[in-house]
């Protein structure tokens, strides 16, 4: 399987871009970085809209940077831009047909994604006959997403697609994207600022800052790394844990996850039995103790080993990385970031390689961040 290999070099506006990465050809890859770091520029370059940069784009053995051979209208990508645009002189359905009419050759062997499927999934039925100029932000976004997908792209590029949506619909669309990605094996490159979105749908993540790649890897790895924390700021620092659903309690509306032999209770009923579910826990929501607290104060008690301690200068806080104990004897390691006051750290005499008990309330486990695999 070939990858999407991208190299960009040069100055655009005030930004010095020096970016190189091989994007995986499956799953969902997140492109994450502060505003103005070059994420959207990478999309523009992939779309063929930038000609004053040194560009090398290889995809399925094709040299896409050859703009004469691959002008913007002949590239195999489906791009949803940051401010999605519908053609307002057309109805919603005509907008969808616009792309079907122009991509008939592509659709021959991949007729799996039907217009009807998208209309159903994205609940567009009641919108079809409406004029594109009178849609709400959320409606517009769904139509644009459907139109982009109907191109049957070999790679789907989405630039902050959810920024305009209310929370309820966002959760639905994220589930749709994840399912779509798995079902049709169309890889997605996804720009977002939302850690919730990253933890819910991201498989891979590429961190970018000032036009350069800072780090890349799987989401569960990167989110615990300092490179990511540096970008988000310490306050948002969090960890992703993966657990297997071992019990649903439908009366109390909670789910018990098995984390390599340790139990974690989360609110709600995500996934099915034996599904893998991801949860995000904010570092500041974690309590630590060097000994077991007999009258347990939270639903969850986990055990781990302190693998690093960082005492922040000119700040009240310290950040610890804890490796969770694995009682299942497989080699899978899960890491947790904890943020406590340095006062607390000194008081409890916590040191590197110490065993610790971790207490975290189920209330603070992010309900939006579930995702079953």
């Amino acid at each position: 399987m070939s990858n999407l290999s991208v190299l960009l070099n040069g100055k655009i506006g005030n930004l010095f871009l020096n970016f190189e990465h091989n994007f995986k050809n499956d799953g969902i890859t997140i492109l994450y970085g502060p505003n103005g770091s070059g994420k959207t520029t990478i999309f523009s370059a992939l779309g063929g809209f930038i000609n004053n940069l040194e560009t090398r784009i290889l995809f399925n053995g094709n040299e896409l940077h050859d703009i004469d051979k691959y002008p913007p209208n002949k590239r195999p990508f489906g791009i949803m831009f940051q401010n999605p645009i519908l053609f307002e002189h057309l109805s919603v359905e005509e907008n969808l047909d616009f792309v079907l009419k122009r991509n008939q050759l592509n659709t021959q062997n991949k007729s799996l994604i039907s217009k009807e499927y998208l209309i159903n999934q994205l609940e567009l039925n009641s919108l079809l006959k409406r004029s594109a100029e009178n849609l709400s932000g959320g409606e517009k976004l769904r139509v644009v997403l459907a139109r982009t997908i109907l191109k049957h792209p070999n790679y789907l590029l989405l630039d902050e697609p959810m920024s305009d949506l209310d929370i309820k619909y966002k959760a639905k669309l994220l589930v749709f994207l994840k399912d779509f990605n798995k079902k049709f094996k169309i890889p997605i490159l996804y720009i977002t600022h939302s850690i919730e979105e990253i933890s819910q749908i991201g498989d891979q993540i590429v961190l970018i800052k000032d036009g350069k790649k800072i780090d890349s890897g799987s989401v569960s790895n990167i989110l615990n790394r300092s490179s990511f924390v540096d970008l988000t700021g310490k306050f948002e620092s969090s960890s992703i844990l993966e657990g297997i659903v071992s019990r649903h309690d439908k009366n109390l509306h909670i789910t018990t996850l098995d984390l390599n032999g340790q139990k974690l209770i989360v609110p709600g009923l995500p996934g099915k039995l034996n599904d893998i579910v991801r949860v995000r826990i904010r570092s500041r929501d974690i309590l630590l103790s060097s000994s077991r607290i007999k009258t347990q104060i939270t639903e969850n008690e986990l055990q781990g080993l302190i693998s690093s301690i960082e005492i922040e200068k000119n700040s009240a806080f310290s950040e610890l990385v804890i490796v969770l104990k694995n009682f299942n004897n497989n080699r899978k390691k899960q890491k947790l970031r904890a943020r406590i006051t340095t006062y607390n750290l000194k008081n409890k005499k916590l040191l590197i390689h110490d065993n610790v008990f971790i207490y975290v309330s189920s209330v603070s486990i992010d309900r939006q961040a579930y995702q079953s695999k």
Partner: protein
Amino acid sequence: MDIYHHLTSDFIAILITLKLAIVTCFFLALIGTPLAYFLAFKSKKTKPFIEAIVTLPLVLPPTVIGFYLIIFFSPEAVLGKIFIILTGEQLIFSFYGLVLASIIYSLPFWVQPLQASFEKIGRDTIRTSYSLGAGPLDTFFNVIIPLCKRGFFTSLIISFAHTLGEFGIVLMVGGGIHGKTKVIAISIYDHVEQLSFGKAHILAGGMLILSFIILLTLFYFNKRTVVRVK
């Protein structure tokens, strides 16, 4: 008999004026549209320079443009010579000389509304269309033109009305030759000079009403579009 003669002469002037406005708008569509597109999307460094040139006819006295055009159109000048070789006729004092002068004079009236309209739909619309698989021409005819209907309409109406009302340049370049280059504006001038106020009234009043109706149509439709957008 005399009145009849004048009526037909005025009628011919009206026909010439309308023909001039229609032919001018046709060529403006061919020349001004790509120019507006270029100014809206393509030009960067050259933009102020080209914009200044295109806008010149708005600020220059018509006599200045007329003066230079007479020089360029004269049989001794390159342009005038080429025209004679191609058609066997002089460019100056001819109908096509008038057309050429009108194109130059009305160019800003075609380019500016259309350019604003193109800029309003923006680069992102074009990029979206390209990325959906539509090529540049496909995009222009099936996305940009329908989306900029209002801009085209405004350009057409204003350029048409403006060409109808030309006087200075038309007089200098065309010479006001009856049946050839004499347009309504010149007829009115002649009538007033001869103190035939009655005939001047008919033509002037006609122009006033026609121009008003044209502008009213423009603002009526544009207002409605604005309301619909909101």
